[in-house]
């Protein structure tokens, strides 16, 4: 079933267009799921507060940015185990033309960002009635 809807990671790192704060920026792991009427994007952004999320859609590019404040003073803390770093999350996607940009919505719960990208009306699957003659 071919549709023209595509959602791809941008080839160039986004750091060029995002205002970059000092400190590391992490790429969140995402799932992208296609349903009949929409694409759903799930991004793991633990430690981001809902008010610190910045989701932008501009000229076919969807940018997810989540600001994360350090939770400890890394310089002064004695770590026994340090398996991950803490910093902002950022990732960009090119959204195909089949998406109805005006109807993109997002929600955030338990550190997971969910972006709903409804398909444009003309790309919706529709059942063709077969006439018998």
């Amino acid at each position, binding site marked *: 079933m071919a549709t023209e809807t595509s959602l791809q990671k941008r*080839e160039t790192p986004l750091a060029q267009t995002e205002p970059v704060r000092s400190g590391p920026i992490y790429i969140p792991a*995402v799932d992208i799921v296609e349903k009949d009427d929409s694409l759903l994007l799930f991004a793991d952004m633990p430690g981001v507060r809902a008010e610190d999320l910045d989701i932008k859609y501009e000229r076919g590019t969807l940018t997810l940015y989540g600001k994360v404040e350090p939770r*400890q003073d890394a310089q002064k803390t004695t770590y*026994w185990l340090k398996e991950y770093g803490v910093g902002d999350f950022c990732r960009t996607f090119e959204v195909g033309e089949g998406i109805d940009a005006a109807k993109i919505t997002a929600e955030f719960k338990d550190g997971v960002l969910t972006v709903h990208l409804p398909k444009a009306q003309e790309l919706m699957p529709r059942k063709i009635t077969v006439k018998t003659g």
Partner: protein
Amino acid sequence: MWPMTWMNRTMTNPFDELRRQMERLLDEFNLSTWRFPLPAAGYPALNVWDAGDTVCVEAEIPGVSKDDLEVYAVGNELTIKGRRAALEGDNITYHRQERGTGTFTRVLTLPAEVDPDRVEAVLKDGVLTVRLPKAEAAKPRKIALKTS
């Protein structure tokens, strides 16, 4: 590796596409910025630090609700158990699947004896923070010197 697929319907030059895919692959191997659980470390990844009288353990477990998480402290062992549900529904196609689902258990031997009755665990925005006050015996104490 993580199962990954992506649709590409605008391929013009196959060599361009190959080069781009190679670049992307190399890009994605740069694990330092990727938030995937590294196999060696187990899941969830942990940060553990000493806050004087308390041992602090922090884990990033996005998408795990309070009801799907269990935290136990026994002796000097901390156990974090949980589960992240997979997306359910008919007629769904994954274009990208980088986020793991299922159950996980991680057992950590703490660097000090803790007082299990006073352990506090907080889950907020996908970050679990467990504060484990050290047992009296494990706290640093000054030894009085006797003179003979």
